[in-house]
């Protein structure tokens, strides 16, 4: 990787940096972190950065919501109502948190699809892909656990059917159901467990996995989707790119990323202002709504379970997820161009079409 020398800043800022640099060598750190060059042909669509930005938005808004939210069945609904009605800009914070969660799932999936269809998960980036897959799973679990917290009818019943999906797993289904619900039914223990997972376990896990993902990403740089990495000549020993084909990561790439973040922030504000997140009637275990559905990102699985045998429907993701996680180790074809890896691309397209079709079908059924 090419590294450039940063210009030395002056004034108070320079003094502070000097002070820090003496002790922690921050200039070297920043230089190695930011002043790198990336291939001009890299097309990231800024999706990884957008996902990270949305995660930061979630951390900030979630922390603010936690100041008022009370995770017990008696108080959860009323506290959310209080946030929406009485807390200054509480409606905005909660709406951004809710829309941010949805957009984060969209962006993380698009990021995965970008990496898959560009074929850049292949050697030498296998572990970056694996870490990314874990981030996707953690993001989905984030959404799942957060959905219950408002403790309204939609939250309660979506979690009921969502945990039922886990309960349908062969052999470990009952354990999984009891583990998720903290008992056979959705009760105060479930809410407490989901809140703990949503605000402690998952943020820590996601932050750790994100750190791993970023370190791996930094060490290898952004992939060039037009240039397959030869198995005989791994990246480290590859001929360096000519200077004209490279782009400074800072400030050029990061500037574009910042513009993308601003666009996402604008979208979040528009969505939260025009379609603020609502609140249905308080959760009632004795009143099943007419149409119970899980969150939209689990809808394809829910719909699949309706027409394939239950065990097959549950086994499909159990088999598919490890396969997807370990994809770089199965896919030994070094080619990156879609027409040279037709099998993988067709399987990918069919899977995406199937998931979109099932989701639309589930929404309107």
């Amino acid at each position, binding site marked *: 990787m090419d590294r450039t020398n940063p210009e030395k800043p002056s004034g108070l800022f320079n003094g502070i940096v000097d002070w820090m640099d003496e002790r922690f060598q921050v200039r070297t750190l920043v230089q190695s972190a930011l002043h790198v060059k990336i291939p001009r042909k890299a097309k990231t669509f800024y999706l990884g950065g957008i996902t990270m930005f949305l995660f930061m938005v979630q951390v900030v808004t979630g922390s603010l919501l936690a100041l008022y939210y009370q995770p017990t069945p008696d108080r959860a609904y009323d506290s959310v109502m209080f946030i929406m009605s009485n807390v200054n800009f509480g409606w905005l914070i909660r709406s951004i948190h809710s829309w941010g969660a949805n957009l984060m799932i969209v962006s993380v999936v698009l990021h995965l699809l970008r990496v898959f269809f560009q074929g850049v998960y292949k050697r030498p980036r296998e572990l970056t892909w694996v870490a990314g897959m874990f981030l996707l799973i953690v993001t989905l679990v984030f959404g799942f656990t957060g959905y219950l917290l408002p403790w309204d009818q939609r939250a309660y019943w979506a979690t009921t059917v969502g945990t039922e999906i886990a309960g349908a797993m062969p052999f470990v289904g009952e354990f999984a159901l009891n583990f998720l619900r903290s008992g056979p039914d959705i009760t105060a223990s479930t809410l407490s467990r989901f809140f703990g997972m949503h605000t402690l376990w998952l943020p820590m896990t996601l932050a750790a996995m994100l750190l791993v993902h970023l370190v791996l990403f930094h060490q290898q740089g952004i992939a060039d989707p037009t240039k397959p990495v030869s198995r005989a000549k791994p990246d480290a020993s590859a001929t360096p790119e000519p200077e004209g084909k490279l782009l400074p990561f800072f400030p050029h790439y990061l500037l574009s990323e910042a513009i993308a973040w*601003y666009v996402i922030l604008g979208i979040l504000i528009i969505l939260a202002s025009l379609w603020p997140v609502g609140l249905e009637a308080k959760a009632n275990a004795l009143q099943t709504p007419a149409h119970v559905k899980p969150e939209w990102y689990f809808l394809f699985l829910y719909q699949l379970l309706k027409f394939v045998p239950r065990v097959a429907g549950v086994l499909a993701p159990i088999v598919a997820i490890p396969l997807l996680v370990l994809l770089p180790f199965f896919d030994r074809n070094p080619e990156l161009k879609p027409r040279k890896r037709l099998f993988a691309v067709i399987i990918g397209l069919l899977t995406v079409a199937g998931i979109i079709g099932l989701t639309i079908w589930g929404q309107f059924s």
Partner: protein
Amino acid sequence: MKHKLAISIVSAVLFLLIGIITVSAQGSDKAILSAPTSTPAAAADRVVTTTVKSTAKAKVDTCYDCHAELLDKHPKVAADWKDSVHGAAGVSCADCHGGDPTLDQMKTSMSAAAGFIGVPDRTKTPEICGACHSNVERMRQYNLPTDQYSKYKDSVHGAKLAEGVTQVAICSDCHGSHAIKKASDPTADVYPLNVPALCSRCHSDAKMMEPFNIPTNQFDVYKSSVHGEALLGKQDVRAPNCASCHGSHDAKPPTSAEVVNVCGKCHTATQNYYEQSLHSQLKEAAPKCWTCHGNHDVTKPDENMFTHTASTEPVCTTCHDIQTLDLIVDKAKFANPDDRRCDTCHHQDSWIYEQVLSLKSAMTVADLAYKQGDVMIAEAIGRGMIMNDAESRLAEARTSLISARAAIHTTKLTEVTKLTDKADASAKEAQQMASDKLGENLFRREAMFVAMGVIITNIGILAVVRRRLYKELE
């Protein structure tokens, strides 16, 4: 040799015949007792071979065994009975049709001597059903009433039947004969949701009703009434069906004097209010529920029920006997729903008309406030605002408005305005809450434009910087 052979063959055939007769007759001791024994040939002539496989010692129902295997409609009758409440309770064919189900010979089991009566005569059917259904000891275990037969005898149907008119409803016309189901079974004709269609099978038939001079449009009128829409449209079993007002076994049209009590079975509060009114004190001449609301064609009441849309000429005979000037109610004047108005009696020159207008005004104002509140809340909800508080307040307004509508039956302005004022106040509070939320929503949208302005400006600046940077790079 040939003779010996012939005698042997004849002897063998006779022996075989006697054997067959003996074996088949062993199915029932009674059959053996009642079977003629003169000659084997004569016996063979009388015996009908059946498919009955039961023996005398087992509990047998030869009626079912035979009819289940016969052609034509018999298997269905047998199957219907088996699946019916009677089949489940062990009420056999013989309990209604007579005969002896333990005998396996048709001629004996279905003989007059065995008490067989065949299809019961229509005039006898209620009595046959009543034989069991009036028996407290037998019905106690099923928690069934035992007064149906006595009620039926007092009904229009029963009275006509007693006169020998067979073209009236008997038990089996409503409950069926063999496929009898519980009234709580949704597939039963007598299930509340199915009762209007059941009654209309006869009462919508002009030919059947002609001898009785009864109109046949009740079902059609009922279907579009508020009651019919609730029962048949919303499938709300709490809504009244024909039997709710006319009775079922004791079916009879309620008299004018009874109608207040009939409607009051459900509309309890309204009946209480009505009984406080001057109307109720007029006894026979009093306007009753039907006067303003009709009977089968009851529609949702609203403020248009107070007065005619156009001015009307008072007709004295609507409320006064032309000879004695006594108060009366001329039913014909209220046949048209558009004439079921207060000013049909209280003409515009009367002093009560002013009170009618005041009542109408109070109700209209409160109703309008409620409707405006409803529209504003719906708009705010449509814009994503949480309106629980306003909805609660509007629900209070609605409760007061419904109470005020019921209180109109007192005809007392003070009683009504007390409630309409309350409804109006609650509705206006709800409106204010909705207005505040709509204002807040407007602020949110304006703030959104400001925020977007800042974001777009920043994006613009960054885009300019980016272009310069890329130019420098080139």
